[in-house]
């Protein structure tokens, strides 16, 4: 995993496609605040709002996978890779594992529009050498941090409730 594939142009993912976002859990806190990486609000089953960071959607890209180009087996392998790295970093077994997956229709993300009627978010295909289905959710260039905060709950809702990891292949 790593570099963007050479010559790959950024293009919008088709509105009819579905994207998925892996969610993880761990036996002990791995990084950051107490609950991390438990990213789902247990009261709502939805992604915690802080998981949608301004820097991600503005600069780095909020990573997702195009469902049709991804598989449950790849997701499990990704979790195993992270578990190995994080257990090594912490010096103990952190049991970092795949908790579930969020799956959303791209058109539901594009349907979040600002007061001017323009979309707030877009989903770009950003294939990586070993992850051809990699994509990113980003805000459009004119969106301010204040507007992002306004529409962040809408993006969370569009991503929906966490499903079992096997749903990637369903």
């Amino acid at each position: 995993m790593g570099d963007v594939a050479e010559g790959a142009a950024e293009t919008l993912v088709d509105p009819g496609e579905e994207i998925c976002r892996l969610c993880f859990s761990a036996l002990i806190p791995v990084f950051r605040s107490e609950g991390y990486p438990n990213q789902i609000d247990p009261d709502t089953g939805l992604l915690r709002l802080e998981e949608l960071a301004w820097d991600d959607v503005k600069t780095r890209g909020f990573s997702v996978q195009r469902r049709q180009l991804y598989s449950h087996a790849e997701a499990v392998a990704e979790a195993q890779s992270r578990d190995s790295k994080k257990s090594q970093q912490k010096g103990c077994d952190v049991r970092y594992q795949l908790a579930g997956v969020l799956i959303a229709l791209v058109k539901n993300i594009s349907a979040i529009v600002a007061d001017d009627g323009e979309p707030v978010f877009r989903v770009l295909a950003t294939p990586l050498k070993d992850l051809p289905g990699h994509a990113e959710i980003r805000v459009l260039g004119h969106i301010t941090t204040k507007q992002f905060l306004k529409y962040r709950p809408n993006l969370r809702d569009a991503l929906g409730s966490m499903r079992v990891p096997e749903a990637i292949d369903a």
Partner: protein
Amino acid sequence: MVLGMPPVGLRTNREFISAPTEQAIQSAQVFINRLPEGCLVFRMALSQSGEINFFHGNDDDLFQILIDAEGTVSYYGVVDGKEVGDSNLPPENLPYTKLLSFVDRNK
């Protein structure tokens, strides 16, 4: 508590994790110290990128405050039926009275 942690940045695969910057931590401290007494019940959470989030209210009626890596503050909420919000302010310039109005209304 994560405030006070030294900044750490690492990239693993496509996973980026950063602790809050010193500027963000300082702004969060200014923000907390300036909060009116009635606004001290909130949820604080860090983003993977090191942003510091403060949430007042509940999921149906939320006042969000976000402190970015530069230590600037953005906020959004609905107070008395009107949207209030701004981007990239120094923490001293946050309209604390509006936040207090939001909290008071939700009591």
